[in-house]
Structure formats: C-alpha cells, structure tokens
C-alpha cells in the first residue's frame, strides 16, 4: 500500500544555518509514527513543511500519492485532511472554545454562523478529547492543558486522515494524556495516521508503531516499536548511553533530622485558585507540587513570587515578609522560572546575552541605575552561564527565539543563578525538554539544592516528581490533600491522590516503578482510574482559574 505521507530528502536552512539535512520518512495509513529527537533536532521544522507553515529548500513532501503543490499552506493542508496541533498554541484567547474549535472553518447556514450550532457541534468533539468545559467559555480562561485539548478538538474538527501532534501532550496530566491516546488509537483503528512528537518516552512507547529518530537535522534511524527499547532510542537521540536520569535524593530524612525551613507559607490563599496551603521550603531539599492539571499549583508559585495577589503568612528565615511584587521577591532572593517561558521567562526578541544579564544588572552596574553596565563583566557572566548549563546558541548575540525550546528553558533558569537565589521556584521546568537536557536539569537542580537552595517544583509529569523530589505535596481543588515522602513517594500513590483528591492511607505494596522506565504502567493506571471515576466527581478548574 502506498504511504499516506512521505517526506523525501527535505532540507531546510534558516539564515545559513542548516536545520534539516535530507530528511526522509514515511507514514502508512493506520499507523502511529513517533518523531523523536533532542531539542532543536528539527522535529517541528519538518512538521511545518508538512503542514504548510514553511516550504523546504530542497526535497519534497508527498501526500496522498502526489507531491504537495508549491503554494502549500496551512489552509490547503487542512483542506487535504491534515490536522495538526502545533507546539505553540494557536488558539485565540479572546474567542470562545467553540469558536476556536472551528477556527477558520466555522460551519455556517446561509452565510451565518450561529452560536447554537457551534456549541452543539463542538460538544461531541470536546467530549471525544475528554474535555468537560462549556463551549462558550473564553479559551484564554482555560488552563494551558485544557487549551491543548481544545487544540486537539480543533484538529479533529477538520476530520483529518493525518493527525500531527507536536508536543500536544506537554501540558497535560496523566489522565488527559490517556484521553489523547484514546483518540489516537481510535483514529488509527479507523485507518487514519498520526505523527507524534513528545519528550516523554513513556507516551511514545504507549501508542506508537514506529519511531523515527532525528539528530541534528538528520534521520538517525527508524525502528519498529517491538524491536526497540527505551535505552536504544535514547542512545540514538543523544549519541551515548544515559544512565541515572534522576540524581540521588537528599541524604537527610526530614522527620529524623529536621532542618529549619527557609521559607514557610501558612494559610496561603489565592482567590479562586488555592486556599489554606501550608508549605515548608527547606534548604537542600526539593519539594514538588503534584496533582492534576490546574489545581492551583501554578498560582502557589506565582503567589510566592509576588505575581498573584494572595493572603496568608509567609515567613522567610522566621521573619514575616510581604511578597507583593516580583521585585519584592527578588529582593528576598527568590527566583522563579515560569511556566510560560515565551512571555514571562525569556525575552524572545532579545539576545541570549541580554536575557542572561537582565536579573544581574544590579551587580554589573552596582552603584545606581545610571551606572554604565560593565561589558567585560557581562561577557564573563554570559560565557560562564552558557558554559555551566551547556546552552546551545550560535553566539551570545543570537535572539532567544531562535533557540530550541530546551535551550530557551535553560536560559530562563540560568539567568537567575548569578543573583545567588536562596529559593528557587520552578513551574514545569522540563516541559518540552528532551531527555538529555532533562537529565542535565535534574542534576543541576539537585546540585543547587545541595548548595543550600530550597527548591519548589510543579510538574504534570508524575515520574519526574517522584524521581526528582524529596517530598511532594498533592494539590486538589486548591488544597493540599496529601504529602508524600520517602518510600511513600510512589507514582501510584501520587496518581491516586491526585485523581481521588484524598490522602491515601498506607500502601500495602508499593510498586516497583523503577523497573518501568517507560512509565507505561502509570499511563495505563491513569486511564483506568479515569474510567472508574464518575466525571462529576472530578474537579472542574475551568472558570476557577484566572489568568492575571
């Protein structure tokens, strides 16, 4: 049978920098192809050629047996049955979910688009992706993960035969991922095809039939799923073995050997997001905030950085502090790596150099704001940081938006290090980050903790929380429902607490998660749990989460 899509020998350069080198791969009907590779390997770029966002310099894309026309565009691609969820969200935050689902192809009767029609026709699509929101909600009011699901519904609205998911699950929690995979399998079973990009190995192995590995813009290999494993793929991607993804945890046991907390939050409440949260951030330890997506994790972090208005007491070194603005927080040596790195984490239009130097300008020009910034000190600082975090940039003068996502993330983190922070707040620090870089970041965080920092991390990735953190507080509808440490910190208990919203008592038999590097069990577990629990019991963060 002829492949549904074949990419043949495509090359692409941006301003002289070749990012795709004669890349070829095919997708058969009824197949799920996973595209894997490090950040910046060229996955999104090659998919952009398929979806018509970009045109190749050479080579061609053959769809449905014929090369795509020269004037290939997202419009034509959509019309030809290619649906896509891009890495960057393409929703209009100001329009309703229903309007977004049919964006560009609104069904109309006699030229008029009726809201009632839109809503009625959006409902089944939203249901299909496991999204329980009012289709009339403004898309911008939804948390990121739900927005990604709206994107998926939008892609499905075009009734695609080829579905492209470029990190479409990066902001999803486990049960949402489960819903996405249901859709993927459904589509495959009906003879459709899917191209999947993800940095979560577990997901790739859970649904894909074949995996194509890209490295530095070239195809390294394509493997059948049955004939490969986690380590093999990682080796192809990174070029070497990757041992110990997660670093050793902190040696000290907090119960036996209590250390005075550095930052204490009591009764922390952010209106309509979280209430009465108590947290202790201890130097040398990494605390995780777990839970389903949108249970207030994000707001806790934002409140601690002075970005969201809150009530409650926060003490630092035993002294009450008011954190009413980021400047206040920074003065107390708190650093924050935001979830939305493109708008809050880095200045995408500014150079790597400018980004890295920005929080340190005080030390680079110490006297006052009118002092000249020392170029030599700045150069030294930038060189040191790019070195230390292995930031891959053509030069420090390169604009941040030209970096791969992973390297942008590193910049967002690296820029705080010279400010000598004591508390590090990280929201989804490895979202969209390749496994090699993830490992680097985990080890970096542990080193920072060992140096005496107190670290607070949110993540939708259960495995990450379990592997990285010394303790995890599970949030449910804005409240801490469980705290897991030591041997109680397992994926199973974490998922259970997240979904049920209650503390699980003791565990009879903690599962040996370490043996399951693919994490496939967790995904399946989540799917099971989702099916068990009646939808009405589950929290509905829509409308309850505001974007400041």
């Amino acid at each position, binding site marked *: 049978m002829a492949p549904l899509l074949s990419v043949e020998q495509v090359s692409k350069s941006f301003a002289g920098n070749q990012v795709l080198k004669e890349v070829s791969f095919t997708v058969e009907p009824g197949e799920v192809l996973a595209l894997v590779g490090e950040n910046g390997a060229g996955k999104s770029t090659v998919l952009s050629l398929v*979806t018509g*966002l970009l045109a190749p310099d050479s080579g061609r894309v053959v769809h449905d047996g014929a090369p795509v026309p020269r004037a290939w*565009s*997202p*419009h034509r*691609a*959509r*019309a030809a049955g290619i649906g*896509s969820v*891009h890495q*960057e*969200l*393409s*929703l*209009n*935050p*100001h*329009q309703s979910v229903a*309007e977004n689902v049919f*964006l*560009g*192809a*609104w069904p*109309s009767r006699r*030229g*008029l*688009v*009726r809201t009632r029609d839109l809503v009625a026709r959006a409902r089944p699509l939203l249901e299909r992706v496991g999204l329980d929101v009012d289709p009339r909600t403004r898309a911008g009011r939804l948390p990121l993960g739900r927005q990604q699901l709206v994107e998926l519904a*939008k892609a499905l609205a075009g009734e695609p035969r080829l579905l492209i998911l470029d990190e479409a699950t990066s902001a999803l929690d486990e049960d949402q991922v489960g819903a996405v995979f249901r859709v993927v399998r459904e589509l495959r079973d009906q003879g459709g095809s899917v191209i999947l990009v993800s940095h979560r190995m577990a997901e790739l192995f859970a649904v894909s039939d074949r995996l194509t590995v890209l490295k530095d813009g070239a195809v390294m290999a394509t493997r059948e799923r049955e004939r490969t494993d986690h380590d093999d793929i990682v080796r192809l991607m990174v070029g070497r073995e990757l041992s110990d993804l997660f670093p050793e945890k902190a040696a000290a046991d907090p119960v036996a050997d209590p250390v005075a907390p550095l930052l204490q939050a009591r009764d922390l409440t952010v*209106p309509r997001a979280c209430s009465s949260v108590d947290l202790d951030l201890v130097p040398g330890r990494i605390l995780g905030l777990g839970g389903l997506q949108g249970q207030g994790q994000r707001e806790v972090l934002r409140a601690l950085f002075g970005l969201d*208005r809150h009530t409650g007491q926060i003490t630092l070194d035993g002294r009450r502090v008011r954190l009413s603005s980021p400047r206040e927080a920074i003065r107390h040596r708190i650093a924050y790596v935001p979830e939305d790195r493109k708008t809050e984490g880095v200045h995408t239009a500014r150079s790597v150099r400018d980004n890295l130097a920005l929080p340190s300008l005080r030390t680079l020009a110490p006297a006052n704001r009118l002092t000249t910034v020392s170029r030599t000190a700045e150069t030294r600082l930038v060189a040191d940081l790019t070195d230390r975090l292995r930031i891959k940039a053509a030069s420090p003068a390169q604009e941040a938006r030209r970096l791969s996502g992973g390297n942008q993330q590193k910049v967002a983190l690296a820029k705080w290090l010279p400010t000598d922070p004591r508390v590090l707040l990280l929201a989804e620090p490895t979202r969209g980050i390749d496994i090699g870089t993830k490992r680097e970041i985990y080890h970096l965080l542990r080193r920072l903790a060992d140096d005496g920092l107190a670290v607070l991390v949110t993540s939708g990735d259960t495995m990450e929380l379990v592997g990285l953190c010394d303790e995890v507080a599970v949030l449910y509808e804005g409240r801490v429902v469980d705290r897991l440490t030591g041997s109680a910190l397992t994926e199973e208990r974490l998922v259970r607490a997240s979904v049920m919203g209650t503390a699980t008592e003791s565990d009879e038999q903690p599962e040996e998660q370490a043996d399951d590097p693919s994490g496939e069990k967790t995904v399946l577990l989540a799917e099971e749990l989702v099916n068990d629990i009646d939808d009405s019991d589950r929290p509905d963060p829509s409308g309850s989460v*505001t974007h*400041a």
Partner: protein
Amino acid sequence: MRERITVAARGNTDLLGLLALLLVLLVAYQHYDSSLLSPATVTILSAQFLPLILAAAGQTTVMLLGGIDLSLGAVLGLAMAVFATYEARGAGDVVTAMALALCVAVAAGAVNGALVAYAGLPPIVVTLAASFLWGGVTLVVLPQPGGHVPAGLVEAYNNGWYGIALPAVAVAVALGLWKLLRTTRHGLALYAVGGNEHGAYASGLHTRGVKIGGYALAGAFTGLAGIGLAIQTGSADPTIGTPYTLNSIAASVLGGISFFGGVGRMRGTVLGALVIGLLTNLLLFTGISPFYQLVVQGVILVVALALKTYLTREAAE
C-alpha cells in the same frame, strides 16, 4: 438563571459603566435642554454624532485586527472631497457620488491593509505615512473648501425627513450590518486574526486576506463618515477630517476596544462616541470658560479610562 445574568453582566462590565455614564450625561443634558427627547433634538444630535460614530466604527475595525489607523482623518477627508466634487460637476446623481466616494475610501483602506499584511510594517507606521499620502490626494482632488451637496439632502439629513432622523437610521443600519457581519465567517475571522494572528494562520485562515478585508471595511465606515460629514455640512473641506483620527481612537478606547486586537465590541464604541459627543456638548451648555474647556476634556478622558481600567481589573480578579 442568576448565574447567566451574572455572567452576562461580567462580560459587559465596562459597557455597563459606560451606559451609566451615558445616562448621567443624558440627565445632565436634559437639565440644560428640556427638549432632549423630542424628535427634532434627536435628529439634530444624531446628525451631529454620525460622523464620529462611523469614524470610530472604522477605527474599531482596525483596532480589532490589532492595528491602529492614523490615516483615518485623511481618508475621511478624501471621501468627503470625492463625494462633494462629483456632485459639483453636475452629474446630479447622489447615489453615484456616494458609491464613488465609498469606493475610494474602501480602496484607500485596502491599500493600508495590503501594506500592513504584505509589507510587514507595523500598522501605526504604515498609517502615519499613509496619512500624508491620502491627505495629499485629498488636496489634489479638492484644493480648497468647496464642492456641493444637494440642498434637499442636506435639509433632510439635518432636520429630518418626514420626521425621521435619517442619521440615526443610517447608524442603526450600519450597526445592524456589522452585527450581521459579526456572525459570518468573515466577522469571526476578523476577531480570530486580531486575537492571535500566527495561530489563525497556522489554523488555515487567510490572514492576509482577512486583514486587507478588515482595513477595507474600516475604509467603508470611514467613507460613510466622510459622506455623512459632507451632507451635514453641505460641502467638503480638505482639512476638516484631521481631528477625527484621534477622536475616533479616544471613542474606541473608551468603548473598551483593546490596543492589542481581538477584544471589544462595536456597541461599546458607539457608546464611547456618544459619551464623547454628549460631553463636549454639555461643556458648551455649562458655560465653562473656553480656556478651561480643553483642560476639562483632557481630564475627563484620563479619569474615565483610569476608572474603567480600575473597575474592569477588579471585576476580572
């Protein structure tokens, strides 16, 4: 049900505020001019406000696309000039003149839109340069005030036609058409492109076409405003349009249109324009010294906007 009402109210907070402000103004107005609600006064006021309302509608269309139109005044003047000079040549056919003026304004808008869509220049820059361009063309068409509009038309517009306030009807029709357009794909596309241009493009929208269309539509509104002004004044004046640029921006912003695109409603703009119009009239009635009129106008604009920002921020939190 109650929830619905609160939802609706929350969505309209700024509009409710504006509406309240408008009511206050109307009451104050009534105090000075007890004939406020008589058909004659309605005619007079609507004749007076039509150009600003329509110009603000044009500005709003561009702002919804995330742009801003600094050439609006010039295009308004151009439409006015074309309309009135065509008449003066004695062709006598008002409809042709209107169509011609409208076409010119739409074309000017489309040129602006094409420059924004294809040239990759920020709208504020394009339209600033275009304001010289269209202002110059206006001077070529009509070097000095003049032109002619049939007296009957002027009379009917300004004093009513069989007791009907024609300008009010025109505004209502324009708004109705806008509402209709809002519910077509084109209208939704306008908001989609204004809200997230790249996303809209990646989702398969012809963003460039939508932009050009939107600017052309803005040109149509502006052209109608120009024609209205020509009929109101019975003539054309190449320099009369200039103040409309900034006034239309003020009305739109007051009406809740965001500078960043994708947010706002036309009814807000209409309210904004009415508030500005009534307020200036009211200042005339109060007999405040002309020296202080400018000060008061500026202060009120700032206070209204600051208040609105404050109130809507509270509501959003």
